[in-house]
């Protein structure tokens, strides 16, 4: 008996095919894992199931019947509940109040009755919460339990959990797994989205692996292993860019020592991170997104300060420096979010000059002639398909990236920090960017490449480091690195 069946689901976002004819069957009373790297399409698929997105084509069956899910309200009515990574609780209200938010039966509230039914559900499912507690005072793990209880309170028979252990400490993870066992005994079905192989192998019965929007396979836990899953997740043996000959490596130029950082939620994002990048080499940092790369990239661009540790470029201590100091130290930064690092409403010429306005002004007045000349030169050199006066936000992703590259690389940087440089780009733009990175390395720069694309890392890097939950799991020479080894490290196993 299938609790949920999704057939032929296709979802496009502009150019990107997020879900490519996906079939997904959830057996009743089972815990089913949805495994894949970031961008594989897992969250998109579940959002379609929960009514947050509409699929372009495909159908959904719940308990064998076709249903039309246009919004979360329909999903809840169909018995589907979802707990996302970003909690939707109101901190200033109590647990009980949060649970009944959105409950449209009746006009009046009966507090005693609410608390009783919460206590009932709590006991039945073994999810311990205090109905009177203010959400603000609850720990992250407790809040997650409230979210789960919220779904159960609305009579969910199918529970979708999106990366539930991402925000939990080990002890809370244990509590969560116990709760899931209890739920399974009660006959609930659970979809467990994750990229953590060890947890998936522990608690799930069946596993579906997604990659690039497609189902690679569905296996029973008993018939597979972590290594098999890793191989399914990260893919092929062959790579797009052919490797050049061996380069002679220089001395360590960028040195990162014992770096620590906290993320926006106040949790530890980087724990004691140390590595070096030598001149004339590309150090690739592999890892699923959300393991600290964003924080590392932001520290190295000067957008946030580390809580501990040091950053050296040559002899200069750049710990906690701001972006202009880092730029003048010869560090080129290609940021993750190309939209947030260029001013969309300003022109190409203005953005190209923005980080060095001092060299484009005379006594405070902008030398627009020089800006224009500079823009024309860089447009030609970097094959940017735009005119100097075009607004940046009208450019395609690939061309926006080229503008960033042009701005950074034209200064002959000594160090290059490239974060997800080809994310969201088409094939030709991707090849162009990769070629430019190799060019910089050949020039003698020290290049740090952070990428979720393992193919890219393996094709471009001289050495590969893997980051997982804020720690460097290991640094390998590219000749020793295999897909399986890296995949395991990326998922937390060494």
């Amino acid at each position, binding site marked *: 008996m299938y609790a949920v069946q999704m057939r032929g689901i296709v979802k496009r976002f502009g150019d990107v095919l997020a879900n490519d004819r996906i079939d997904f069957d959830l057996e009743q009373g089972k815990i089913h894992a949805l495994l894949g790297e970031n961008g594989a399409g897992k969250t998109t698929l579940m959002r379609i199931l929960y009514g947050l997105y509409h699929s372009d084509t495909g159908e959904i069956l719940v308990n064998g019947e076709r249903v039309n899910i246009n919004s979360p309200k329909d999903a809840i009515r169909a018995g589907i509940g979802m707990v996302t990574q970003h909690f939707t609780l109101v901190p200033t209200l109590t647990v009980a109040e949060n649970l009944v938010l959105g409950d449209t039966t009746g006009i009046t509230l009966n507090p005693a009755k609410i608390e009783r039914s919460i206590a009932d559900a709590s006991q039945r499912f073994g999810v311990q919460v205090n109905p009177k507690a203010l959400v603000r005072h609850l720990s992250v793990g407790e809040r997650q339990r409230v979210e789960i209880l919220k779904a159960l309170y609305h009579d969910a028979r199918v529970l979708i959990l999106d990366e539930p252990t991402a925000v939990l400490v080990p002890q809370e993870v244990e509590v969560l797994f116990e709760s899931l066992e209890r739920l399974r005994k009660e006959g609930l079905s659970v979809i467990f989205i994750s990229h953590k192989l060890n947890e998936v192998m522990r608690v799930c019965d069946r596993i579906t692996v997604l990659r690039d929007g497609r189902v690679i396979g569905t296996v029973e836990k008993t018939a597979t292993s972590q290594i098999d899953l890793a191989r399914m997740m990260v893919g092929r043996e062959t790579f797009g860019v052919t490797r050049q000959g061996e380069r002679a490596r220089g001395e360590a130029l960028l040195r990162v020592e014992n770096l620590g950082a906290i993320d926006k939620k106040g949790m530890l994002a980087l724990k004691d991170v140390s590595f070096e990048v030598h001149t004339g080499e590309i150090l690739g940092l592999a890892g699923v997104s959300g393991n600290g790369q964003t924080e590392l990239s932001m520290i190295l661009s000067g957008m946030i300060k580390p809580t501990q540790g040091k950053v050296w470029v040559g002899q200069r201590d750049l710990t906690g420096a*701001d972006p202009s100091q880092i730029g003048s130290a010869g560090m080129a930064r290609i940021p993750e979010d190309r939209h*947030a690092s260029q001013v969309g409403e300003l022109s190409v010429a203005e953005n190209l000059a923005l980080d060095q306005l001092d060299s484009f002004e005379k006594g405070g007045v*902008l030398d627009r002639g020089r800006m224009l000349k500079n823009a024309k030169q860089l447009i030609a050199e970097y094959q940017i398909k735009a005119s100097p006066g075009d607004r940046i936000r009208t450019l395609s992703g690939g061309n926006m990236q080229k503008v960033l590259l042009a701005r950074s690389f034209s200064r002959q940087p000594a160090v290059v920090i490239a974060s997800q440089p080809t994310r969201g780009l088409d094939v030709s733009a991707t090849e162009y960017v990769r070629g430019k990175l190799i060019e910089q390395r050949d020039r003698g720069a020290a290049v740090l490449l952070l990428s979720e694309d393992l193919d890219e890392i393996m094709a471009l890097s001289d050495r590969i480091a893997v980051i997982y939950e804020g720690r460097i799991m290991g640094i390998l020479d590219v000749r020793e690195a295999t897909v399986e080894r890296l995949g395991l490290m990326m998922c937390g196993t060494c």
Partner: protein
Amino acid sequence: MLKFRIEKVPAPFWMRILIPVAAVLVTFLLTSILVLLAGADPLKAFYYFLISPLSSQVSAIEVLVKSTPLLLTGAAVAFAFSAGYWNIGAEGQLYAGALVGAWLGIVLQGVSPVVGIPLMILGGFVGGALWALVPALLKVKWNVDEVVTTLLLNSVILFIVSYFLNGPWRNPVSMWPQSPEIASGTVFFKLIPRSRLHFGFIIAVVVILVEWFVLARTSLGLRMRAVGLGKDAARFAGIPVGRTMLTAALVSGGIAGLAGVGEVAGIHFHLIDAISEGLGYTGIIIATLGALNPLGVGISALFIGLIDTGAQSVSRALGVPSYLGDVVQSALLLVVLGMFLLQNYRIRRVQPSAGDNVTPPGALAEEAKELR
């Protein structure tokens, strides 16, 4: 079954220019309803609003007089908004400038205008800038919302002004709450004899032109606009965001202060409580209507000045309440804001595809029933 989908598509250039014009038309359409309710003819009302002020030399000059402080407050607000600093305190900064102007008018007895007028200008600017200082520092250092702080300080300066006018500066003979007449050397001379048009108008025009130059042609202007259009991107490019915002806030306050000193030195020649009746707030409308471009601000200020002048004749001729002019201006702001938001969205029709699970099961059942 037809479905509609809302898409976000940035507005083309020609649409952006037409928006203020379309907004004016829509506003007048909306306010026509009010005019009809007041028992008057909308077309006649708009003649008095827009045409009749320009029909005589006297009223045309009056339009320029009314526009003078509006040019300055509009410029002040636009300058701050360009850097993403939401200065709602132009009204208070205006009063601060007026206060300093009134004080200078008292202490600079017997000076020549060559000395007096520049000092008035400087004093008005400094007064406005000082009043803008505290909210700016709070914003830059602790990210305290400047909308709240600048707005609340408006009330504070009003009471301070009231204190002076009812206390130390009160006219001892008439007991009227107005400051003493300012010294003759501090008066802004008239541009056209026997009219109300004064030197402040020249100052306003110069400020508009300088502001245009700064925003469009200097590195400070580009930095400000980068901060206003993309704070993170600006920071990423190494622009000192805090310092840039602070500069924008202080200069904005100073320009608003100039509006205040202009009213004191050019129109009233002393300070009164009612020296401004919302000129600072109207500046916000003007800045928005002008899309933060100083030249657009200039046109909008003149336009609002036109409406202000016309509003008086409308009420006299047709008997509609005189605050209809205020209603028109406020409606204009709302319409313009709405249009600026909506210009970036399109409604597109979506044709359902073959395998689409859009048709609700209920509809199919209904059709099945009908066929049976």
